């Protein structure tokens, strides 16, 4: 059952990849005899059907894994992040049904792919549930919260397309730079996946001994070549050695390893970005812009707003209300200012501010789109940084 589950996830991944390519193809301005609109429509439909097939396959992964483990597979970083990616695809399927915009698929699908690929770099073993997690609220709270975040992510996707579409690319401005930074960061995630996957395929490992902040001698094992070693650490093997040591305050048991991986991601992202720029010979967003010119900006603005309008109540229900009910049952209090709770509140407050800006102060178009970008950054921060860096009661998830 567990093997079947992995296979289904793998198949879903491949289908999503093909769907992305199909959506991208539907936007290309091929100079054929064919009617452009009919061409776009036909390939858009193929892409959409593929997305639904991929989603069905991932749903298969989800339920087979559930059967294998006996609990809803949303209990660790791999499972939750994979599920979040699946909810992004689901939200895309929903929103596409309303607006039929192929460009949404060109961006939403690869971002969901990146999320799932990123998730797969974490331990994938089926782990048992600790007592705190043994509750029906695990599936109710986590799935609703992930669905809300998935829908909110689509508002980022639509906002990003809007910005690429409207930001003036003839001159270099703060806005064009910000867009390039977003592209670069997406490539960094890709870089992380690439480095981790290649290292894992090569079976690379190197270990260090060092003294951590609790004054304990610990051994830390890197799965990618060590650019940055632990402070005052000694390498246990003769693999490629660290070029520098991480700063001395970074002395948590796993901190140097995470920092090293982080550096690798930034570097690979940089290399990838450089290669793409060399090929395109212009900004990435400037290269994409011409493909988007027949999209109406106010349609994109609308999609972005609607995603928040739909996603905000779902997120509130899942990430705050259900969370509070469960917290009351498991931890005796519905609210305890745990970092994950606080960042869910921050996400809530941010989108509340967005809605006030938009509905009361008339922030439409560009301002609104930039806010959606920031909102996505906050969601990602809560997903990644709070778990890997801050860590509190939710550190298992």
């Amino acid at each position, binding site marked *: 059952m567990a093997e079947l589950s992995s296979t289904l996830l793998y198949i879903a991944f491949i289908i999503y990849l093909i769907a992305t390519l199909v959506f991208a193809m539907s936007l290309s301005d091929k100079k054929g005899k064919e009617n452009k609109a009919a061409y776009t429509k036909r390939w858009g439909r193929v892409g959409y059907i593929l997305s639904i097939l991929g989603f069905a396959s991932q749903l298969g992964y989800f339920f087979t894994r559930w059967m294998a483990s006996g609990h809803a597979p949303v209990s660790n970083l791999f499972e939750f992040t994979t599920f979040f990616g699946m909810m992004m695809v689901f939200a895309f399927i929903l929103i596409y049904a309303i607006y039929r915009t192929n460009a949404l698929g060109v961006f939403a699908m690869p971002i969901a792919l990146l999320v799932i690929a990123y998730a797969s770099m974490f331990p994938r073993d089926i782990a048992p549930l*600790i007592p705190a997690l043994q509750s029906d609220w695990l599936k109710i709270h986590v799935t609703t919260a992930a669905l809300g975040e998935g829908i909110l992510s689509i508002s980022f996707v639509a906002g990003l397309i809007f910005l690429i579409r409207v930001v003036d690319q003839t001159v270099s401005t703060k806005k064009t730079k910000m867009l390039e930074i977003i592209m670069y960061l997406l490539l960094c995630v890709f870089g992380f996946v690439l480095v981790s996957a290649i290292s894992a395929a090569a079976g690379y490992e190197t270990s260090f001994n060092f003294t951590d902040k609790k004054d304990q001698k610990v051994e830390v094992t890197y799965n990618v070549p060590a650019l940055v070693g632990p402070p005052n650490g000694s390498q246990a093997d003769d693999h490629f050695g660290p070029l520098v040591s991480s700063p001395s305050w970074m002395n948590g048991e796993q901190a140097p390893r995470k920092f090293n991986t982080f550096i690798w991601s930034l570097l690979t992202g940089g290399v990838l970005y450089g290669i793409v720029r060399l090929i395109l010979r212009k900004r990435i967003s400037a290269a994409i812009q011409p493909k988007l010119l027949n999209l109406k900006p106010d349609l994109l603005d609308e999609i972005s707003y609607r995603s928040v309008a739909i996603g905000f109540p779902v997120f509130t229900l899942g990430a705050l209300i259900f969370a509070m009910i469960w917290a009351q*049952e498991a931890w*005796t209090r519905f609210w305890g*200012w745990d970092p994950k709770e606080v960042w869910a509140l921050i996400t809530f407050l941010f989108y509340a*501010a967005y809605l006030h800006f938009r509905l009361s102060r008339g922030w439409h178009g560009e301002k609104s789109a930039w806010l959606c970008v920031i909102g996505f950054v906050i969601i990602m921060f809560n997903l990644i940084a709070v778990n890997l860096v801050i860590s509190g009661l939710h550190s298992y998830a």
Partner: protein
Amino acid sequence: MRRLYRIWKYQAVTGCAKLKTIKCECGHSNPFGTEICESCGKPLTNEKSHELINMRYEGSAVRSQTYNKTIVDKVWNFFSSVKVGIWIIIVILVAAAIGTIFPQEMYIPPNVDPTTYYKEEYGTPGQIFFLLGFHDLYGSWWFLLLLAALGVSLIIVSIDRGFPLYRALKYQRVTRHESFMKRQRLFAMSDSGISMDRVKTVLAKKRYKIKEDNGNILAEKNRFSRWGPYVNHVGLIIFLIGAMLRFFPGMYTDQTIWIREGETTAVPGTKTEDGQYYLKNHKFVMELYDKKDKQFSQALDKTGNPVPKNYQSNVTLYHAEPSQVVGAQTELKKERDAKIKVNEPLSFNDYSVYQVDFKLNEFHRMNLKLENKKTGKTYGEIKVNLFNPKSSYDLGNGYKVDMVEYFPNFKLDENDQPTTENSIPDNPAFVFKMFTPETPKGETAFIGIRKNVEAGDNKYKMSFSGIETKNVSALTVKKDRTLPIIIIGGIIFMLGVVQGLYWNHRRIWIQQRNGQLWIAAHTNKNWFGLKREMQNISEESGLVMPIDQSDEKSA
């Protein structure tokens, strides 16, 4: 608050004649501050302008936009501003984020001193974090003040905008003034000649409610969605009030008790005139996942550490009537047996008892034997109850052991004097005086775990012969009478959010003027959706598609 309400009511509800009123050319007297005539819809400010009119709150008199003289006005205006509201939200957001940089005081280890912990653990940034009071950010006066400001803003903004909006929407007229029509964002004129019946059918099919007046039409739908923001704000206010009530006596208790196996304890905070609840802890159970468990074996092998499966206290709940006689033995009446697990608290009346912590194998009884050092012969065993030791243990035949001193949790103080850290027997140590027929004056010895110090050259010694342990459960007793209020607030909030975001208020005015058909449309949000719907209506009914006048301007 009352006064504010009176002032508001005075000029907004009654449109009182005592104050200056604005008379429209149609003859209607509008309250001071009105921007669009309540009766005919003629814009009362910037009459000559051709710009789109501001439809917010339907142009009715809003207190905060009208008065700005007294301090009350100024405070009112400050909190009723959406801009200020957004700023309060953003400041709370940033403050909340800062609080997560380092752990809050409640999440640092319980036995460390925060004054030094933050510096040692996180260096200078940690020290600054502590010195600024950010280790207890969410309980600080200024953070609570921010939350209070948010609450005040929610209340004032709801009163300031909610009532005028209600009034304006309730009494709207079908026929509107010429410039009201022309200055709507979606507007068109066309030579009439289409069937109004067909238009009405199409509008009705789209679930519009239609009002008619002299052949003019007002089609409206989903007005209730306009109350969404006010409903969700009321929900939030109730939620915040609920959270505040916690600080009133009797609303909230939160206490943790440690109960050893076999022990019965009064449940703290449950004492009333009707008596008190008691809990007996029969057994604390900890289960671990089995490494041989096939489905989890890979993950369990990797972590190496055992993974807990269950923490559970098997208890019995008792209730005792208040004793009539002072000092009389309380009589416990059994209520029920229960298994308290993580995620499965025991609930009775207003109370819930949670499994929160445990301690395995706490020393409970220690057995020692009196032994002749030379021969190794023993002369009986003493069993020391570590929670209630006897001062003397008689072994018969002239053999006796006195306990001179007892340190349940032994340590040496600054002056190297033996002392005890607390009364929990984690590291018990004793000073015994041993009497035998051979040594009638007694021999003194200090006995601890892996310690044996003698006053002189003793002939006898006390040797460990056994230890009995017990598990201890930590149970948290909670009563929270604010929960129902908080739940109601949460439900109202959710309903309001959905009501406001999943529906949109749309209105279409169709008027016959000078042989022409005028059409204008308005929505409070989601213009794109309205335009799509108008496109649809115009295709089905032959009505001319109104033009977005804000597009024309920007183009």
